[in-house]
């Protein structure tokens, strides 16, 4: 009997380990041999722990499983109360275009053999026969843009590093996924870590870097453990080391753990942190591509950007580019979170409307109350309201609607939400996490909290002050923390002026 129970942190936080123990207990009592695979999560978090049993027809799912449901797996599984049918045929799975997440939830994350059997290493093998410039051109033509949030074309960044002359260059993976509502990096590192490793090796080949670092946040202990083990396996198998796959140049990876600072998700403060300094933002220029880690040319890319490179190399730039909308090419792993009926990870080509995502895919709110607002792109992203639900999911489209897609986290709130309170929280968060380098962010966030408190106390005149402050923070901050905090604040004020005083006063 072959059984899959996810090792994903969300599945474990919902009781997967207890389910595993019960399965092993039950199997031992019945004298049945069980082959247990701790796979990644399929992304249907509302069904976790999602247990899959291999049958002649395919993998049949059961969820959400409790310890009490385990005994039933050893009887007639067709009549099991938690039976879901074939997992691959579930509507949530069938509607997706899984390119980056093709193997997540499917394979054993720590089996290099399964990784290869499911298409892994094909991209790296192809890259080994190409010049750096050819690899960079392939990534550029795919239209891949930075999935961390900024949306900068990955190929252009790589071309800059390729063109830089230096004795040592670096690939730095930004795995400091601090945005609320995002967990794609975590799921990828826990569910298909070798894919990230392959992407980093290809990046190294492309730009001539031999050393890679993954800066992984300390809040993700499971991802740290799984990726660390995957690096060890890749090194033992020669995917990493003095000669990549036996005949390439050298490339090796070291995992560095963060220390709880949100701002270290910003690439220059990440580099300072990696160098062992305070995670303070650096002014640009110089670009990290020219003077990055240790002052050397450095590619800094998000986990999802790097983990998407293998499929681009394996299937070609045109294959990837043919998905998407406008200048947003390929697929985006949407992370649906907060107050939703069906939360989790849903990878789709760019172009779905926000309304389709929230009402259709996520099934509306978990509480059953009307949706009041949707924050897209983390704590620095704007609040969208149902009147904007026709906005298509794309970088330019969201920018045009006064927001951003960021790392594609979508957090849904029902009508009981206090939007003034959410605006205050955005300022409070910025005050807590500001690195302190620039004044608009360091001082502005503190004054922002105070000003919102004055509005709450009935001083409607403070609204103009808040608007002015947001303008200063937006235009005067060094990085996105201070610069984008006005997004949630001003969108809350714009869409819900009655919560900030009267409509009249807000318009002044």
């Amino acid at each position, binding site marked *: 009997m072959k059984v899959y129970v996810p090792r994903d942190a969300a599945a474990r936080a*919902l009781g997967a380990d207890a389910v595993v123990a019960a399965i092993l207990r039950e199997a031992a009592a019945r004298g049945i041999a069980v082959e247990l695979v701790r796979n990644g999560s399929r992304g249907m978090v509302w069904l976790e722990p999602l247990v899959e049993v291999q049958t002649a027809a395919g993998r049949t799912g059961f969820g959400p499983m409790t310890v009490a449901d385990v005994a039933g797996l050893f009887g007639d599984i067709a009549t099991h109360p938690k039976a879901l049918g074939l997992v691959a045929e579930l509507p949530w799975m069938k509607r997706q275009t899984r390119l980056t997440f093709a193997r997540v939830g499917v394979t054993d994350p720590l089996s290099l053999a399964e990784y290869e059997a499911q298409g892994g290493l094909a991209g790296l093998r192809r890259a080994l026969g190409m010049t750096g410039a050819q690899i960079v051109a392939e990534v550029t033509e795919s239209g891949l843009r930075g999935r961390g949030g900024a949306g900068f074309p990955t190929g252009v960044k790589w071309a800059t590093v390729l063109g830089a002359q230096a004795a040592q260059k670096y690939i730095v993976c930004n795995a400091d996924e601090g945005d609320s509502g995002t967990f794609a990096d975590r799921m990828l590192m826990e569910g298909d870590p070798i894919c990230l490793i392959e992407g980093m090796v290809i990046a190294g080949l492309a730009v001539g870097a031999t050393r890679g670092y993954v800066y992984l946040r300390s809040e993700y202990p499971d991802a740290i453990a799984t990726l660390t083990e995957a690096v060890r396996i890749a090194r033992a198998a020669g995917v990493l080391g003095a000669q990549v796959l036996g005949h390439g140049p050298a490339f090796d990876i070291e995992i*560095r753990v963060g220390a709880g*600072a949100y701002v270290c998700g910003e690439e220059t403060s990440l580099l300072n942190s990696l160098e062992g300094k305070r995670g303070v933002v650096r002014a640009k220029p110089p670009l990290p591509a020219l003077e990055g880690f240790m002052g050397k040319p450095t590619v800094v890319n998000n986990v999802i950007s790097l983990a998407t490179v293998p499929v681009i190399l394996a299937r070609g730039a045109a294959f990837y580019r043919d998905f998407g909308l406008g200048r947003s090419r390929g697929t985006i792993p949407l992370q649906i979170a907060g107050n939703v009926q069906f939360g989790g990870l849903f990878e789709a080509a760019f172009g779905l409307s926000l309304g389709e995502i929230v009402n259709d895919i996520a099934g509306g709110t978990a509480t059953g109350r009307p949706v009041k607002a949707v924050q897209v792109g983390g704590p620095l992203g704007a609040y969208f309201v149902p009147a904007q639900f026709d906005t298509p999911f794309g970088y330019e489209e969201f920018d045009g609607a006064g927001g951003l897609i960021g790392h594609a986290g979508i957090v849904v709130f029902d009508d009981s939400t206090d939007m003034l309170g959410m605006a205050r*929280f955005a300022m409070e968060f910025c005050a807590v996490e500001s690195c302190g380098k620039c004044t608009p962010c360091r001082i502005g966030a503190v004054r922002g909290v105070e000003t919102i408190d004055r509005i709450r106390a009935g001083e409607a005149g403070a609204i103009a002050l808040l608007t002015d402050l947001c303008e200063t923070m937006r235009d005067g901050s060094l990085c996105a923390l201070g610069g984008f905090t006005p997004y949630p604040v001003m969108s809350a004020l714009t869409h819900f002026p009655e919560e900030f005083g009267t409509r009249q006063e807000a318009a002044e």
Partner: protein
Amino acid sequence: MSQTAVETTVSGICAALDGGEGPLLPILQAVQAEFGHIPQQALPVIAAALNLSRAEVQGVVSFYHDFREVPAGRHVVRICRAEACQAMGATATAAAAQARLDVDWHGTSANGAVTLEPVYCLGLCACAPAVMVDGRAIARVDAERMTHILTECGA
């Protein structure tokens, strides 16, 4: 532990990790894993090993939320305060914890059992509210369940 013993242990950690590029964070993490906090006596040892000033090391320690300069309680309970968890009632979860422990954020209960820390996202945003107890994540923690968890921690 005596001052000499602390210095010896920290020297050993520095010697083991000093070979890497930018080794200060890994060293501080190892020191904290050893002692549960960063003892003041460790700072000059680390500074000397890395050819930094003591102030530079202190500056790094004070910058990051993870490093603590005094020991925590027997258990560390971290409650996510970020937006996705708020959308599912994390504010009530946090309020219940603060009331049960009679502390504010970063406080330790009078009996030393639990230190309460805020955390901004555990990546469990589709099964919110999320908390972490000594490194173990728990999802969908409402106020009642929070109180139960704290009781289990001996608060």
